[in-house]
């Protein structure tokens, strides 16, 4: 049973995402800030990380993704974003944002599951 770690500061998003993933048979652990999320990844070594951008945290989601890659941790990362369209910033996987894919909030169960399966089957 694949283990997924969700890191998002919005408790409701974490709750809804957890339920979607659990319904499809995934094990889910969560953290509400990048630091706690980092510890969880180190301890549990998950198969996939769902990471929110968390722009208002001092060390945001981007920072955590970069930190993991610097440590040669290549766990697939699916990034939650909420304002990419509004600020006109085209998110894409690159050195600045070393993640594997993006999901635009609000999340829909089908889309989330599709992206998770795609990353896990690679």
């Amino acid at each position, binding site marked *: 049973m694949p283990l997924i770690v969700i890191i998002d*500061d*919005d*408790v*409701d*998003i974490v*709750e*809804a*995402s957890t*339920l*979607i993933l*659990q*319904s*499809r048979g995934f094990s889910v652990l969560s953290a*509400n*800030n990048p630091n706690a999320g980092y510890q969880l990844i180190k301890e549990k070594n998950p198969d996939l990380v769902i990471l929110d951008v968390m*722009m*208002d*945290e001092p060390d945001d989601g981007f920072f955590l993704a970069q930190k993991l890659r610097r440590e040669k941790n290549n766990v697939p990362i699916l990034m939650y974003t*909420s*304002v990419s369209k*509004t*600020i006109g910033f085209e998110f894409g996987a690159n050195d600045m944002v070393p993640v594997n894919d993006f999901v635009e*909030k*609000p*999340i*829909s*169960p*089908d889309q989330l599951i599709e992206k998770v399966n795609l990353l896990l089957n690679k």
Partner: protein
Amino acid sequence: MTNGKTKILIVEDEKGLREGIKRLLELEGFQIELAERGTEGIQLGTTNEYDICILDLRLPDYDGIEVLRQIKLIFPNTVCIMATAFASYDTAIEATRLGAFSYIPKPFTPEELLYQIDKACQQRRLILESEKLKKEREERLLELAYEKGRLNTIIKSIADGLLVVNSKGEIVYFNNSCLKNLNINSLKIGEYILHKIPNQIVGMINQLEKDNDPNQSLINQIEIINNNGLYVEAACSPIPFQDGKYSGVVIVIRDITQYKKIEIIKSQFISMVAHELKTPIAAVIGYLKIILDENVNIPAEKEAEYLERSAIRLSGLVELVNDLLDLSRLEVKEKKREFKEIELVKLIKTTIEFLDLEIKKKNIQVEFSSEISEIKLNADSSEMNRVFTNILSNAIKYNREKGKIGINISIDENYFVVKVSDTGIGLKEEDKERLFQEFFRAKNEKTRGIQGTGLGLSIVKRIVESYAGKIEVESEFGKGSVFIIRLPVVN
């Protein structure tokens, strides 16, 4: 001659001749003065400007040439006639060299003299006329130079940069602001500059030359120093020749850095607002989708909880929209303030009563004390209400169960001081400074789960400052915070 009679000085040592000439010329209407010796002649001729001087070449004390030299030195426009019985070629040449007008050999007849005098008068008139014209021209040139200088000073002083380039790409004119706004150390008139100025400007110059349309102007915004160090707007207009053909461009370079910075702040604010609006919506949609999705199994007891959470998030959203509206009203000052006399003690007590339910829910004890029993403020009551509601509801929201809230009013010189203290979670040092910024919310394990828009305190700060007041915070993380509001005492 300029005003009335022509003045003539006669320097002649021979008494009979001297007096004879005087009588003759006075009859003709001239004003005559006489000198017997050279010294006397020099003295008179160099203190007053005579129209004409008749100088004897041989005087007992001086050579007539010397008298001529001295007079001409002071009054070069005096017309001098040399009279002599010993005319020689050499003296004639010397006298002419020194500026003598003519030569009259002695003895002369009255007709001969009058003929010479008449010619001298004409000469004098010509000299005076040309002097007058020369003076006028000089004055006009001076005026023109002054006018040009004034225009130059004005152009040099304006904040907009001005650069004029000819069709060969050489500088014709530039001002100081041009150097500043293009971040160039120095330019020289006549130097080729297309390699020195930003490519965008060169592009505009080339375009204008190609199009050759005298009515076309091009405007571009150009980043001169990265990261908004210097941003300019360059407006290029062609300068046509008289035949309408392109002869160069005039470029006005305006510093718009401040404007750009405001634009960036504005767009940052909008994306922050969008983020804040979208976050609760995303949470609610998330819950609704899992409730509606047949593939997601929700434990029965959870469904009601998710709907409850959705309602809470939507209430938060409404609160946020209200805060945003308040903020924008404060920003544009569109809302008319209704100033009236407010009793501060009463206002705070009413606010406490209004929040009674929340206070009781958390079992919080409120202590109120005031040095002064009655404090009158002239303010908009809805704004003052907002200030104390926000501050007090924060003191409740971030307090612990069975905590305390202290409200103390005192007077300090020209300010009423309201201190609101709580026994809540307090603030970390790094959060204190950003506390009053829009959308800032202290994030730590203790604030998680506490709802807020992140706008409450920035609204409070704006209102307080609009009344020339001040707000500050003292706090210790884990122990509590004190918010201190100072409002000026107005008589």
